[in-house]
Every structure is written in structure tokens, then in C-alpha cells.
């Protein structure tokens, strides 16, 4: 797994690539929670180059979402570019309606 953090019109974009599993998800968790700690208003996670995700990866996003809501500063976590195979796991886990999911960065920002 690899993580790249960039700025897009003042919004933080976390681009993840490779496999998110029990080995790599702690590093993703750390990045996510540190950005939430800094009260990032819009937190976009680009999943388009993620080839695999297991339940520890899903748990990481669920935790991020909960932390963001608990922060009470109106920050929003948005998942973008989700490949079909990963979308399918979110659907199976009934999380596709819990997360804000967008096709690309612009759709996510215009919402």
C-alpha cells in the first residue's frame, strides 16, 4: 500500500494505492486520524488505485467517519473513484449508504 496526500483547491486528498489489509491499514488509519485531528473540512479519499481491501481497511474508514462526525466541526469524509470490486464489498457490508461516495474529485467537491 502507498499513500499520497495532496491539496486540491484547499481540500486534502488522500490517494491510496495497492492492497489495504491488516498489515497496511494501521498506516492508513494514522494518516486519516491525523488529518481529522487537524479538522480537515473536506477529506477526500481517492481509492481508484486500490487493488484490494479487507475488513480491517473497511473498519479504518468506518472509524474515520465516526471520528469526523464526533469532531462536530462539520467535516465530511468522501470516498472517490471506488473500483467496482471494492464498491461491491461496501454494498455487501451495507456501507454504501453510510459513506459519501463519488466518481471523482470534482463531483465530490460540488456536492
Amino acid at each position, binding site marked *: 500500500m502507498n499513500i499520497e496526500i495532496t491539496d486540491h483547491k484547499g481540500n486534502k486528498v488522500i490517494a491510496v494505492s495497492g492492497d489495504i*489489509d491488516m498489515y497496511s491499514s494501521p498506516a492508513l488509519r494514522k494518516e486519516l486520524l491525523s488529518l481529522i485531528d487537524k479538522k480537515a473540512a473536506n477529506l477526500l479519499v481517492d481509492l481508484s488505485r486500490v487493488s484490494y481491501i479487507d475488513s480491517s481497511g473497511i473498519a479504518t474508514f468506518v472509524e474515520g467517519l465516526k471520528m469526523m462526525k464526533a469532531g462536530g466541526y462539520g467535516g465530511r469524509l468522501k470516498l472517490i473513484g471506488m473500483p467496482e470490486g471494492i464498491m461491491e464489498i461496501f454494498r455487501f457490508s451495507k456501507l454504501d449508504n453510510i459513506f459519501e461516495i463519488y466518481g471523482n474529485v470534482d463531483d465530490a467537491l460540488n456536492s
Partner: protein
Amino acid sequence: MKNSAVLIIPSHPKFLSVLRGLTAAMGELSGMTTMEIEDVKLAVDEACSNVIKYAYSGDEGKRITVKFRIAKDRFEVIMEDTGIKTHPEFIKGRSLEDVRPGGLGIHLIKRAFDVFAFDEKKKKGNRLTLIRHKKNIKKSNEH
């Protein structure tokens, strides 16, 4: 040992990718579709993650043995550890409506495998048997 393979790995999470690589190759050999392979790979990864987390309490220096068997009518995975005895009656995925981190692994395992059974007779450690029947049309149409 015709049509079977055995993998022994350390109980370190970085070896999950190695187990996935082997699972995918065995799935392909057994004639699964790419989508079926993805489901089975995820399920085997989840079962192994649970061995590391629960049977070995995160100890990364133990070993896990995974046996694969391809038969005409099924795909079998047997996972063995020498860790803390699992009490199958306490294994329960969370309700999918109750959104919180964790509790998805068992659902993902049972989605891919028809049988999920711990060998009660094993003296030390655990032996988990996973069986996926072939031509399980219902399962493969579900998603």
C-alpha cells in the same frame, strides 16, 4: 496429495499478501472466475487475520498452516494454528445494521464458503475447515 497444496507462514500480517497470492493461484487452478477468486481470497485473508488476532493475540512469531484441496465438487481450505483454543459459540459477526468498525470478517468468510467449522477434536490449537461447493449458483449470483 494430488490436487492439494500446503503453505506454512509466520503469523505476521505481512504474510497475508503471500497467502492471498497462493489462494488466487489455487482458485484459478480450480477453474473459478475472477470474481469468485476475489471473494475466496478475501475470505481466506479474513480467516487468517482472525488467527493472528485471536488465536495468537497478535504474536507475530508463530506459524500458520494452510492446506488447499481442489476436488471436482468443492474447494477446501484447512487452516491450522497452535494458539489459544477458539470457542466457536462466541464467533459472531456484528449485525450489518449496527455500523461500527469490526465484525465484518465472519460475514465475508461465510459469503465465500458454505462450510465454516472448527475441529472440536483437535487437542492443541485450532483447525478451521472452509468448504466452498462448486456450482453454487445462488452464491455467485448474489452480487
